[in-house]
C-alpha cells in the first residue's frame, strides 16, 4: 500500500467512525442537560469526546468539522467553568452548537480533506 493509499484509508476510517462518536456525544449531552445534578460529570465526558473529534478531524484536514467541534468544546468548557448547570439560554446555545457539529459530521466525506488523494512523492 502506498503512503497516499494509507492516508486515504485513515481518512475513510475516520469518517466511518464519526457516526458512533456523534451518537455518544448526543447521548451524554442529553444526560447532562436532563440531569442537572450530574451536569458536570456528563459534560466533562462530552467535552473529552468533542475534544477528540476536534483534534483528529482538524489534523486529518476536516477543518470545517473541527472548527464546529472547537466552538462546541469551548462552550462546554465555559459552562463547566461556571460551575453550575447552565440556564435555558445557555442550553439552547449548546444545543445549537451540537446540532451544527452533528450536521457537519453527517456531511463530512473523505474527499473533503485536503489530504485526500495527495501525492506525497511530490512533496518536500
Amino acid at each position, binding site marked *: 500500500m502506498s*503512503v497516499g493509499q494509507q*492516508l486515504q484509508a*485513515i481518512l475513510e476510517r475516520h469518517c466511518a467512525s464519526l457516526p458512533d462518536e456523534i451518537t455518544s456525544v448526543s447521548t451524554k449531552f442529553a444526560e447532562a442537560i436532563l440531569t442537572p445534578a450530574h451536569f458536570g460529570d456528563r459534560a466533562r465526558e462530552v467535552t473529552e469526546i468533542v475534544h477528540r473529534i476536534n483534534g*483528529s*478531524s482538524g*489534523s*486529518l484536514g476536516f477543518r470545517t468539522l473541527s472548527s464546529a467541534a472547537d466552538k462546541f468544546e469551548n462552550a462546554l468548557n465555559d459552562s463547566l467553568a461556571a460551575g453550575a448547570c447552565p440556564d435555558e439560554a445557555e442550553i439552547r446555545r449548546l444545543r445549537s452548537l451540537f446540532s451544527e457539529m452533528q450536521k457537519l459530521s453527517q456531511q463530512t466525506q473523505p474527499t473533503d480533506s485536503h*489530504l485526500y488523494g495527495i501525492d506525497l512523492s511530490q512533496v518536500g
Partner: protein
Amino acid sequence: MANDLNRITYVEDEPDIREVAQIALETLGGFTLDICVNGMEAVEKAPSFEPDLILLDVMMPGMDGIETFQKLRSNPKLAKTPIIFMTAKAHTEELERYSALGCAGVISKPFDPMTLSDKIRGIWDHQH
C-alpha cells in the same frame, strides 16, 4: 553531526492523529520515529531509544503530557533532550506554563501534517 535531528520519540494517544503524524514525520520529514501511545510507554522506552527530540501530546488520559514531561526530565539520559508539546490549549496562560517547565516549543493542535516536520525543524534550529 551532533546537531542533526533524526530520532524522534512521538507520544500521542489518538490513533488517527498518531497515524497521520507518523506518515508526515517519516515520509515527509525523513525522521526515525519511536511511537508511544501514552506517557508511561514513553517514560519506559525513550531512555533506550535515545531520541534527539521528544514530541509530546499534552492532553492524554492517565499520565498527561505535563507529568510525562517531568518524569522524562528526571531521567539523566533525557535531562537535556528537547521536548516539544503538542496541544490544543495553546493560549497565553498555557504557553507561559509550558515555557516555565522548560519545553523547547509548542505546536498547536490541530496541526497540518504537510507542515509538521518543518515546524519541528524550525524549533530544533532555534535551539541549536
